């Protein structure tokens, strides 16, 4: 029996879909059987980020309304044998499916997969309730901005009232240079306010944008700092203890020598 993890944030544009795609892919890289579910009905994006748009035949609404079986709607990834995606419908909206229907679909996916990663839409309305309905765990994404932290806090409050036990936090789009100059919210401050476990921090990385536009999850490119972060997050999800990345310290050969000599 697999585990269903919902990726949510409250605020839009903080990187839920990107994170879902990358965590899903990273888990597949680690040899797990993964299914990603896009619950952002009417504004589906996960298929675009994954580069699987042209393979969609059925969607979540078709499954919910019984036009096809769950397995027929799953889109197999082009890179991994054990990575699947259940796309959202683009023509309907969030009220065309109920939390109960989503729960049933997730329940059907869990026995066949190690992880079911659910991409949640922005907001806290019906779409959010749909997305969290079938989840066992939750990952809350925020960025180091006050507005995003506020919304994350709101979502954590709602998650705590639901059946999901203790949500975990990912702080996305950290800019090490701003962090160093003190112009950005500190990671410690964010963790203090939100008071939940930190699952990982992801640096802001141009490669992520390039990757999303080309339909290749960043995590496949090992030279990207964000990819390392996503891989670490996936390992932590599996229960490994991986230390947090040190951001903004590009230690070249010279730096290493300096450190060795005690000057760094």
């Amino acid at each position, binding site marked *: 029996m697999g585990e269903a993890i919902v990726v949510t944030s409250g605020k839009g544009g903080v990187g839920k879909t990107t994170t879902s795609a990358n965590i899903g892919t990273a888990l597949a890289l680690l040899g797990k059987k993964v299914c990603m579910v896009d619950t952002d009905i009417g504004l589906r994006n996960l298929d675009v980020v994954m580069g699987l748009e042209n393979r969609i035949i059925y969607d979540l609404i078709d499954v919910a309304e019984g036009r096809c079986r769950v397995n027929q709607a799953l889109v197999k990834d082009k890179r991994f044998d054990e990575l699947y995606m259940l796309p959202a419908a683009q023509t309907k909206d969030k009220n065309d499916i109920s939390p109960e229907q989503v729960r049933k679909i997730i329940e059907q996916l869990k026995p066949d997969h190690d992880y079911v990663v659910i991409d949640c839409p922005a907001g806290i309305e019906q779409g959010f309730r749909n997305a969290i309905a079938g989840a066992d765990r939750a990952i809350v994404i925020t960025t180091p901005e006050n507005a995003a932290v506020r919304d994350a*806090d709101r979502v954590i409050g709602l998650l*705590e009232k639901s059946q999901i036990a203790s949500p975990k936090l990912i702080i996305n789009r950290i800019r090490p240079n701003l962090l160093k100059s003190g112009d950005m919210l500190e990671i410690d401050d964010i963790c203090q*306010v939100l008071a939940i476990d930190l699952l990982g921090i992801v640096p802001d990385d141009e490669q992520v944008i390039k990757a999303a536009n080309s339909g290749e999850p960043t995590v496949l490119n090992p030279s990207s700092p964000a990819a390392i972060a996503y891989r670490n997050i996936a390992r932590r999800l599996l229960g490994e203890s991986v230390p947090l990345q040190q951001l903004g310290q590009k230690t070249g050969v010279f730096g290493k020598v300096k450190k060795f000599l005690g000057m760094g």
Partner: protein
Amino acid sequence: MAGKKRITIKGVKDGLVFLLDDRCSFEDLLTELHVKLDKHEKQFTGPIVHVFLKLGSRRLDEADKERLRQAFRKQGNLLIQSIDSDSPQEPEASADAALTTWAGIVRSGQTMEYQGNLLLLGDVNPGGTLRCTGDIYVMGALRGMAHAGSEGNARAIIAASLMRPTQLRIADVISRPPDEWASAEPWMEYAFLSEGKMTIDKLSALGRSRKEVMQFKGV
């Protein structure tokens, strides 16, 4: 004088205890004190006698205490040792002082309301609201909005381990930092109304302005 004694004098081992009624006006009390001291002028001569003034639940400021001292000064041998008010152990005060404890975080969008005094073990996050008819004590960070004395009790206070609120309200006074006051202090602080204005002080000063919240007296 309505025949009711406002002042009772008792002899104790160390001197005299003056029990001053706490229900009449202070002016009446002072008049009667003068009368009493004049009447018993003869008794009050001789060796130095220590006097302990008990005010009951009445609270006096320094000026009024000085007027009391003045009255006794006429009697050269009466030396005031202390002027005390009771720490309120009256039933209504202790009922008020009952404190309910909650543990948890008041997160953005959540509102916690309570009738009475509340001790919160946890934080109030920005966007969260904590509203009480009595006092609010936050053992944690107060980053959201706290409203004490929400039904009009202007004597209510808001105390927090870390005072960083988006807004504070006591009774119907609304105050928003940092326009009116700013706190960057590492110690625990509390907010109270002083002449209708929101004031912040260290928590250790609470005993001075609100004697009845102090439940114990040191030995």
